[in-house]
């Protein structure tokens, strides 16, 4: 579990100009994207990995050599070989097929959990940031929300997540809820600090003076410029959530067996490592690590694209050679 490491530390440096015409903005973003990839080929690797993993998830039924949840005790614990490239587990299920199917579970949980937390955390953080220092009622609201976030974050993440799963029962939905809960404070804080810094800018004051409503100011002027940091966080967070999911499964609080899922595969396989069969747990670990790595790379690339200071470095590296 890499907890806080999932947080982008320097995201505060984002400062985008008020948005120009939609088209030009996207055009420049597009070229930016290519440029960043060109400047840091490793970022491209991130997109390749994640695309590959997603492709596996989608195409698994067609590319997996075996059914991922059909046991075949005749070939239990076969080492990697011709008929089972990555070997089989203790019930004779094909490891490769299970690894290929696993992102369906892992990514679904991670993406849903992260999306849910972003959907709650981003608007809430924006409102809290926007309300801070305004009228008493609004200030009280934002203070209450922030204290609640403190409490949530002070709870040991892992114990909290397991407790949530224990309460709601072992299912994918429970894990999604647990992941969403532990991630909400991250978005909440990120958006709040972004909004706080943008709120102080002239063009926001101008809109305020011009009589725009709070909602309009938030939507039109603040959110578009504050959201980049959250987007960068999103990718990193998906990776982190995959790790958390796997960790939960590892202690048996994750998905129901024999759902193909990397963490539970590692956990199940571990019993067999004891008696010399390393393959059931080593391969899923590699797949898991690669996937998280890919998402982290993408997160980094978004971060770089959104941070002018870092862009300069990239540009130099790109042009300079």
């Amino acid at each position, binding site marked *: 579990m890499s907890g806080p490491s999932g947080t982008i*530390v320097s995201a505060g440096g984002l400062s985008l100009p008020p948005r120009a015409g939609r088209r030009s903005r996207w055009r420049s973003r597009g070229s930016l994207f290519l440029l960043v990839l060109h400047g840091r080929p490793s970022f491209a690797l991130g997109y390749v990995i994640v695309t590959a993993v997603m492709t596996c998830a989608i195409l698994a039924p067609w590319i997996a050599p075996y059914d991922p949840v059909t046991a075949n005790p005749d070939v239990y614990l076969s080492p990697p070989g011709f008929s089972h490239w990555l070997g089989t587990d203790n019930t004779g299920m094909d490891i490769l097929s299970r690894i290929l199917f696993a992102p369906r579970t892992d990514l679904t949980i991670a993406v849903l959990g992260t999306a849910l937390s972003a959907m709650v955390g981003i608007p809430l953080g924006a409102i809290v940031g926007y309300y801070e220092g305004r009228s008493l009622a609004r200030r009280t609201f934002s203070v209450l929300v922030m204290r609640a976030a403190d*409490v949530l974050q002070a709870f040991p993440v892992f114990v909290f997540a397991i407790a949530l799963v224990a309460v709601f029962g072992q299912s994918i939905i429970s894990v999604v809820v647990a992941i969403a809960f532990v991630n909400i404070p991250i978005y909440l804080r990120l958006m709040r600090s972004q909004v706080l810094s943008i709120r102080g800018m002239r063009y926001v004051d101008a809109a305020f003076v011009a009589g725009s409503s709070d909602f309009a100011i938030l939507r039109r002027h603040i959110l578009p410029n504050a959201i980049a940091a959250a987007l960068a966080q999103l990718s990193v967070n998906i990776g982190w959530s995959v790790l958390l999911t796997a960790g939960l499964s590892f202690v048996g609080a994750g998905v129901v067996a024999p759902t193909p899922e990397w963490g539970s595969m590692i956990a199940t396989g571990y019993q067999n*490592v004891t008696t010399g069969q390393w393959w059931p747990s080593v391969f899923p670990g590699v797949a898991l690590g690669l996937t998280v790595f890919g998402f*982290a790379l993408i997160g980094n690339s978004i971060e770089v694209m959104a941070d002018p200071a870092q862009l300069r470095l990239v540009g130099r590296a790109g042009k300079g050679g």
Partner: protein
Amino acid sequence: MALARYILRRLAFVLPQLVGILMVSFFLVKLIPGDPAVLMLGPNATPDAIDGLRRALGLDQSLIRQFAVYIGHVFHGDLGTSWQSTRPVVSDLIERFPATLELVTLGLSLALLIGIPLGIAAARAGRGPLRKIGEAYGLLAGAIPDFWLALVLIYVFYSTLHVAPAPLGRLDIALVAPPFVTGSLILDSLLAGDLQALGSALAHLVLPVATLGFINAGPILKMTQSTVGRILASDFIRYAEMCGLPRRVVMRQAIRAALPSIVTIVSVLYGFLIGGAVLVEIVFSWGGAGQYAVQGVLNADINPVLGFVVFSAIFSLIVYLCVDLAYFLLDPRTRG
């Protein structure tokens, strides 16, 4: 005095937070299915006995009332009893918390030893290969599940190479643990002058500490790199360069200025790892506090979970106080 005011403010802030955390955890774990009275009495209990115990435990009262009673007990240092260990949670935790603390402290120290120099080197390297290595390490360390790394380390160093002791806890099974003083086996065996126990404790620490160190060096590296990088590009370092100060002096100033950020991430990691190292604890059968809490959750044993939350909240409180103290010493601006 400024420092005292600081600490008081922190305390005033933390106490309600502690109650808040307890409240959330209390109601959360109360929702976990499983009747403690049934579990405590076991399968042979008659319904009468169960009802009696429920009354004795106050389980027949409203949740709010139960919570009030619990909080009252907590402030008297009573965290209840674990039905699994049949012992008071406080004594269980006093035994187990130091185990976790020792592991986490050493793991984090190793992470600092790896992360800070690499982070500084990467920040200095501009866009050279060191920076790439630093970045790759940061990403990789963040991507590897710690429990998996622990398994691989065990497989390599214990099963295959036979250089590490069996991952069966903190001390060789044949040895008698030194008398309990601090709870840290290193310190206790030193105090007792038991070199054999010391050696065994150290040997058992190697793999779990390496696991935690390697993984957590990632965020420390990232933080160091970005902070030192930012500081190296900052006005005052540029000014120091303009003043022609030697490279090492400039670097020293930069690192000194980066310290508060590093202290912050270390404190966050420290607090996180108390509960977050649980998977590593499990893999190494460490018998630490996190493992205790997780078992509590999984087995509807409420008091250990709440007790763990209390302990870790108090621990976080102490860590954050230390951080404030460090800030106070490191940054003159906070003294104003």
